[in-house]
């Protein structure tokens, strides 16, 4: 299995193809353009379909259609474009369709900036479309992880008939690292008996892909069904890295690129005798609350670091449930926190510079 | 002799068939169906030519035409 030097965006695209993604619908937006560009080159060569849609709205609805017809398909965008997709995502969740949506996050709000950020956490995990639904949200911290999690996303989407988001900060999409790409799937996927593939009146009932249930008692049942599904996902699909937590007295909570920088801060702090570790959620939803709860009587305080004004910190606080102090440090607008800034925050928690 | 059959219970009494019948032999009944509509009926089947104008205009597929 050979390592290739690849840009995160391209590794995501190639990995999706390895997972059997045959259709890609997207729209240009910085910093994810390499994904549609790569797909436009690769998909026609393997009998797939690349289509640049007229907007991100159209793209997510093309995903809805293709997914409803039983195909593995995806779209990608960045923050403002993901905002546009929210209605479509809600429809996909409500219609119980599998789909993979990639968000390479840039500074916001509004047109914002093109540099990396992590300010879409709320949008991804607490909404951002209407209704009671959840996206499985996977947050890679390296190009390798971006490839692996994209590959996984398709399986999770099909398994649970739910949309899955792969959310990388802009750095993950743009940087180049050595990666071992996942092996292309060889066996055919299980047939989707619920898909709209044509009704011949014999083999099955007519299939309708739909999220409209005009009877409230029926819609409630549908919601209960979705909630049960989310419960199963919460019980089975949490992914999280615990780094140097065995003897840690202080915890840094961070994900994506921020977590990598935190590891540097941890290594420098440990040289000074401060025992600090990292809890890095890889699934932002389901959130690894049980893992945080494990440490509330072993750790003195938690520093949450994000490239935002503080979004994941709210889930950290909820998980910690007031047992120990949770503080926040963030840079935003595309600014990247430095390990020194993080280290200084931990030193404050530890009672001043040693 | 051509014949048309109307499904009284499906008819919504919209009157489009009445308008288009070239022989003017359709009218809305003074009776109502269970949904409360005055359903359409043929007053003089002998005159029916089986042209199917009524059936073609009916939005609810109430009418079957035999010839």
């Amino acid at each position, binding site marked *: 299995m050979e390592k290739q030097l690849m840009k995160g965006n391209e590794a995501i695209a190639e990995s999706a193809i390895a997972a059997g993604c*045959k*259709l890609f*619908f997207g729209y240009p937006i910085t910093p994810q353009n390499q994904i549609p560009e790569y797909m436009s080159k690769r998909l026609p060569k393997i009998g797939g*379909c690349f*289509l640049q*849609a*007229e*907007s991100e*709205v*159209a*793209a997510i*609805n*093309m*995903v*809805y*259609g*293709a*997914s*409803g*017809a*039983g*195909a593995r*398909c995806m779209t990608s965008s960045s923050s403002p474009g993901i905002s546009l997709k929210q*209605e*479509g995502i809600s*429809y996909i969740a409500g*219609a119980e369709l599998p789909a993979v949506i990639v968000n390479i996050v840039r500074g916001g709000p509004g047109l914002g900036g093109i540099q990396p950020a992590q300010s879409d956490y709320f949008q991804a995990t607490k909404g951002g479309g209407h209704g009671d639904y959840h996206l499985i949200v996977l947050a890679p911290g390296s190009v390798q992880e971006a490839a692996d999690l994209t590959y996984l996303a398709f399986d999770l989407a099909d398994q649970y008939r739910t949309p899955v988001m792969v959310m990388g900060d802009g750095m993950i999409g743009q940087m180049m690292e050595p990666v071992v790409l996942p092996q292309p799937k060889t066996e055919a996927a299980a047939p989707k008996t619920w898909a*709209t*593939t*044509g*009704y*011949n*009146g014999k083999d099955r009932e*007519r*299939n*309708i892909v*739909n999220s*409209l249930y005009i009877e409230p008692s029926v819609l409630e049942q549908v919601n209960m069904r979705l909630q049960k599904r989310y419960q199963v996902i919460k019980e089975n699909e949490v992914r999280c890295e615990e780094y140097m937590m065995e003897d840690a007295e202080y915890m840094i909570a961070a994900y994506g690129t921020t977590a990598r920088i935190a590891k540097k801060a941890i290594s420098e702090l440990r040289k000074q005798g401060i025992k600090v570790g990292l809890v890095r959620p890889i699934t932002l939803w389901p959130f690894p609350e049980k893992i945080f709860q494990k440490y509330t009587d072993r750790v003195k305080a938690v520093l949450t670091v994000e490239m935002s004004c503080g979004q994941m910190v709210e889930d950290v606080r909820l998980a910690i449930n007031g047992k120990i102090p949770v503080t926040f440090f963030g840079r935003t607008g595309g600014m990247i926190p430095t390990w020194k800034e993080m280290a200084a925050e931990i030193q404050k928690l530890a009672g001043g510079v040693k | 002799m*051509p014949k048309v059959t109307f499904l009284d219970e*499906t008819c*919504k*009494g*919209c*009157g*489009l068939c*009445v*308008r*288009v019948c070239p022989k003017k032999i359709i009218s809305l009944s003074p009776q109502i169906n269970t949904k409360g*509509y005055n359903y359409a009926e043929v007053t003089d089947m002998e005159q029916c030519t*089986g042209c199917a*104008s009524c059936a*073609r*205009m009916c*939005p*609810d*597929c109430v009418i*079957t*035409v*035999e*010839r």
Partner: protein
Amino acid sequence: MAVVFSKSKVLTDVPLHYCPGCTHGIIHRLVAEAIEELGVQERTIGVAPVGCAVFAYNYFNVDMQEASHGRAPAVATGIKRALPDSIVFTYQGDGDLASIGTAEIVHAATRGEKITVIFVNNTIYGMTGGQMAPTSLPGQVTTTSPYGRDVNHCGYPIKVSEMLSTLDGANYIERVSVNNVKNVIAAKKAIKKAFQYQVDGKGFNMIEVLSTCPTNWGLTPVEALGWLEDNMLPYYPLGVYKDKGGESK
């Protein structure tokens, strides 16, 4: 005696929920007959809009997808690209297609998507209670143009068939009406041709059907046909606007 006219098997047994005299019923029937006569029922997939026809998936005896408002052409694109051998149609009203969905219909047309679009134009928003549509006529009174559509304030209606016919990607565009039997027969022919073209691998195909909304126009169903004849036919002329395979305006 033989049965010369009966309900198509491409329509389910579910009674239509449309208002008495609503021309949706006629148009549904014509679409179903076209699908049946072309023998493509088993590979047809329809896309329902948001609008009065939101429950269209209950009436067509084929696999169906419900799209979000305006996005049916994009959903249809996804289906057709995933299953190129399927016959895909969208069924959309004037709000769905000409307001929120303007980008989607223009781009499906310009891409030459090999789909069939049935565009039901009744110059008003039916399902939501009679608001102005992009196709509402100058001076037309609606619940959001209570003094009549003022072209100085909110402009002129969109002539969708004319507009889309300028696109090289469009294959067949015809405007028809269902106000009388002669026009219903012509509409059926056009709709069947729009499906036939897709069977032949050609696209983009659209039939704009001038239709009535008795309830929101405040008229009886028969009066509504008259309103269509007096007001809509002059503004939205019937005819073939694009036909790569034949003659057009």
